[in-house]
């Protein structure tokens, strides 16, 4: 029944075993010092990503099929997300080396990162609602703890409580959605649920719609869709910035993975005007995220709002998915890009916090001279987030907006998504540019070069190479994203 050589099972075994072992090692080991646990975690994550890539290259992975009679499927769609999330996991782990040096309980910290990674990866591979929910909780519970990791810091505690409160609520809502779906169709397998949905009589339709609405709310909470986003800035701000990187770049993408598997497919089956609903949410989300970011004075908070705005861009691709063939491809591409860009910005902030102990925007004046590599990495990531050519964010945004314009042949409102996206990108440049201006064009308290944390430098160099490299030669990644798009033939498609 269970194929132990399939990618999701192997990943669970690798990451889960190491994640469970680390606290044991901590008990057995007398010396203190966090670097050992970080190194073990990094090793496990590298092994995991290596395995995923190996599986793809040796073609052990099936084409992207949304359905399977099993609870897990070993397909390219899942592998694409697995790679994105494992990259985020690696960046977070490496970025944490310096951040965790002086802090308590490193073993638990790294172990939780690994367990959260298992959850994120499994979400992407799940084809059963119950499996999906278990993976969802496996991802969420460690992150609740991680958000409240600084236990003496009240804002970290508040962040954890808010995050947990909303997490619990959204879990309840997802369960509610699953139970309705089960009640209507008698199955929790996504394939059978969708098949069942498409055969529903008109009197049962409102219930199915309610289920989809519940899924949007439940998964939208992690993604940070407006109006389910309220907890997000508070939680990101209070959590350690490295964990904010994991939340913004990792768990958010897991939300998208779930949304793609469940909402899009379910909604297509229901033949709803869901595309319009998602489009409205997309525009509201990006506008509110960017508008609110402008007023922020705190870097983590500004980046939190910016990630809300970015979720809006990604949603463009999803909302035009059934009409434009490049919609989901563009979304996947932007998801991968955003993972790296956002993780890199938060790790840069973590580096600033470790070195200077500040996150206020007025305090980072002159950072270009004081921490040149961090500042450069942050600048390039911000420019990529804004979509400045020739960085990777430019290409994925171009594809997203292109897909919206492409869909304009069928849906009259689709091009307005592109218009909103372009206007929002311009709006976002205002605050990204502001950060860059503070770092380079205003003089800080001193111009003395500070010792930058080595692990942060490593992450910065990786992300610069990734961002610029894909910006110059995006083709392989675009091709990979294309191959990861789920095959939608056989589904009823609205026009």
């Amino acid at each position, binding site marked *: 029944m269970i194929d132990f050589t399939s990618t999701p099972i192997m990943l669970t075994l690798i990451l889960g075993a190491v994640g469970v072992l680390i606290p044991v090692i901590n008990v057995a080991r007398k010396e203190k010092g966090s670097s050992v646990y970080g190194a073990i975690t990094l090793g496990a994550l590298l092994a995991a990503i290596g395995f995923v890539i190996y599986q*793809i*290259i040796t073609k052990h992975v099936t084409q992207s099929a949304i359905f399977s009679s099993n609870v897990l499927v070993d397909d*390219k769609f899942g592998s694409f997300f697995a790679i994105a999330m494992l990259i985020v996991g690696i960046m977070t782990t490496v970025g944490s080396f310096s951040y965790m040096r002086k802090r308590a309980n490193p073993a638990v910290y790294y172990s939780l990162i690994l367990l959260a990674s298992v959850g994120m990866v499994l979400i992407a591979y799940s084809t059963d609602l119950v499996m999906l929910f278990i993976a969802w909780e496996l991802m969420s519970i460690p992150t609740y703890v991680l958000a409240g990791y600084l236990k003496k810091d009240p804002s970290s505690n508040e962040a954890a*409580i*808010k995050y947990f*409160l*909303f997490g619990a*609520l959204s879990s309840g*809502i997802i369960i509610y959605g699953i139970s309705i779906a089960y009640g209507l169709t008698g199955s929790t397998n996504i394939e059978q649920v969708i098949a069942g949905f498409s055969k529903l009589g008109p009197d049962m339709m*409102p219930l199915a*719609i*309610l289920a*989809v*609405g*519940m899924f*949007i*709310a439940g998964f*939208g*909470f992690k993604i940070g869709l*407006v*109006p*389910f986003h*309220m*907890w997000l*800035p*508070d939680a990101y701000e209070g959590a350690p910035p490295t964990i904010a990187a994991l939340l913004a770049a990792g768990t958010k993408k897991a939300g998208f993975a779930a949304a793609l598997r469940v909402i899009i497919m379910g*909604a297509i089956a229901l033949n*709803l*005007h*869901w595309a*319009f*609903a998602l489009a*409205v*949410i997309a525009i509201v989300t990006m506008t*509110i995220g960017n*508008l*609110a970011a*402008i*007023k922020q004075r705190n870097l983590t908070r500004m980046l939190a709002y910016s990630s809300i705005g970015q979720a809006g861009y990604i949603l463009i691709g999803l909302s035009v998915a059934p009409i434009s063939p*490049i919609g989901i491809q563009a979304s996947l591409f932007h998801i991968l890009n955003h993972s790296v860009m956002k993780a890199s910005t938060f790790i840069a902030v973590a580096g600033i916090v470790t070195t200077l102990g500040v996150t206020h925007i007025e305090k980072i004046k002159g950072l270009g001279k004081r921490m040149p590599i961090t500042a450069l990495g942050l600048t390039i990531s911000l420019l990529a987030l804004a979509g400045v050519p020739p960085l990777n964010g430019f*290409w994925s945004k171009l*594809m997203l907006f292109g897909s919206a314009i492409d869909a304009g042949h069928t849906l009259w409102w689709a091009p307005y998504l592109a218009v909103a996206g372009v206007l929002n990108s311009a709006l976002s440049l205002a605050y990204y540019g502001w950060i860059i201006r503070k770092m380079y064009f205003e003089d800080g308290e001193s111009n003395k070069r500070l010792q930058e944390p080595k692990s942060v430098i490593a992450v910065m160099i990786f992300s610069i190479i990734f961002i610029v490299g894909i910006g110059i*030669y*995006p*083709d*392989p990644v*675009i*091709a*990979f994203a*294309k*191959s990861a798009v789920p095959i939608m033939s056989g589904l009823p498609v609205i026009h």
Partner: protein
Amino acid sequence: MNILPFDFISGLGDLRVWAIWILPFIAALIIPAVGKASKRATGYVAVAFALASAISVLTLLPSALSNHEIHNQIPWISSIGLKAGVLADPLAVIMSNVVAWISFLIFVYSTGYMKGDKDLTRFFFWMAFFLGSMQLIVLSDNFLQLFFGWEGVGLASYALVGFWYKDKKKDHVGIEGRHVLGLMDYYSPTHSGMKAFIMTKVGDIMMLAGMFLIFAFAGTFGFRELTTNTSWATAMAAQHLLIPAAVLLFGGAIGKSAQFPLNEWLLEAMTGPTAVSALIHAATMVKAGVFLVARLAPLFFALAAIGINMDQFFEVIAWVGAITALLLATQGMVHPEIKKVLAYSTGSQIGYMMMALGVAGLSKQFVDGYTAGFFHLISHAMFKASLFMAAGSVLHIVGSRFMTDMGGLRKYMKKTYIFMWAAGLGLMGAPFITTGFWSKDAIFAAVYQSGNTWALPLFAIAVVTAVITAFYTTRMIGLVFFGNKSKHIEELEKAGHHVHEASPSMWVPYGILAVLTIGVGVMGLAFEHQIHDLFVNYLGSTFGIKSDVSAVAMGGSQQLLGGFLEGVNPLALMASLAAFAIGFGLGYVFYIGRFADPVKFVNSNIFFYAIHKFFLNRWYLNAMIYWGFVVAPLYVARGLYKYFENIVLEGFNVVPEKTMAGGARIMQATQTGVSQSYLYIFGVGILIVVFLLLI
């Protein structure tokens, strides 16, 4: 899924071609690391990589001379059908050789010239980057990739022109305290770097517009794809967009090659180290524009076969070239700074090349003008690099940029003196023994024989410019090496600094080029015929441009010479000889023989005085550009700010600002931090979503 698809590897094809431009970039990448260990080593790394790149391009030369073309493509962004590629046809390979070898010599020279500078790492980083970008331009097979190199060259020139960013007084150009139309004629390195960047950017934007205009119709950026399928040209011509697009593309060349009216940045670009000036003027930056025109001219000319007339485009090129040639030559006559004289001369000579390429498109024998322009590019690259490096040596040793601070140096710097004569004779076009003579003669002949309505005025301008060129070159050599020692040198000697010859790492590179100027010059005519034959084949096979190589057709109505001077147009030859004789003679009288004092001569007559001042003030063009595009906009901006912004925007139109701020404030107000209200909004959100799904 293939991360590195097979066609990527196989598409690379001939790796030598890629190596030519990738090697300098690799050098640029490792130079900062090397610089940590040893600053001096950065120079050797740059030289080694330049040599490796030069050797790999030399190996391509034999096949290119037999009109063999290497065209390799790899997928770049296949979702929009873009490919990256290298195109090593005869044009690119010859150009690439010129760039590679001259840059190599300049790199060698730089190791001596920049010795002891604090920022060697930065210097060689940008030099290598410069070379890589230029080779990328030359070997690109499409516009977009070329544009990457184009911008790289612009960036590197900005960084190198403003290299001495501390703006010390000795690094400025111009005469302190001199004013033209109320504006200072004195520029700092950082100002000049910015000026070069902005002025060339004007051209770049035009070029970008032209590029995308063509892309919109053709759906490709590839040069070969544009040649094989010309339906785009028909479509564009039908909408009267073809000539504007072509002229916009030429705008890029105008900016990069410092042609009228974007010529003014070139003079201030002299604030960079002299090695940089040599690189910009002989091998890289300004030649990029000529190369672009040489790339495009056959493509557009070949459209005549499908009945599209591109005469207007070529007229623009020819006239821009002619105006620049004359304009800058006249200014070169009067300037006191040695590097600026050479800079004027570069702009002027580039004007010749443009004129030849433009005239090529206006005549039936396209290949004549094309060969002449490209031949002049090669010969100019040799003697101008040599002249710049020699001038750099003189500057280095005398410690002043003014020729009036030199004088009488021939006894002290014998080698430099001889080499400067050799290279200078090339620039003057000394008969029969220099490359400059043959290439200039070829241009004269091409212009004269073109049979175009503009042939005579263009020919006249070309000849007058040649006279002036011979004159200012003689003046420069006379002022530097002849006469008595200047006060400045006497002071130097009193202070214990003796004027001496430059070090071998400096004089060897320019010596080689000076010897080449004469050496190739002796065989110049044979050399020219060689290129001519090659281009006849190349243009015929690649673009389908047929050339009639019989003597009658080549000469037009003129009877060409035979024997030793086979194929030379007698009238052009006479004009070349006369121009050299007059220019050199005048220069000899004033500056070498010193039979008359030029200062007294100019002041003796109000007409001469006025014209001298007019030339010295650069025809007032620079001042006008500053007034029109810098000073006036600043006034307008200040005025706008004072009256419009303050009163109108602040007073009445607060709506957009207030709504934005208000919107942001509402966002902030909802974000209370109170969990109850968050949960409330969450709940309302679910209702809204379900509602949205129902409509």
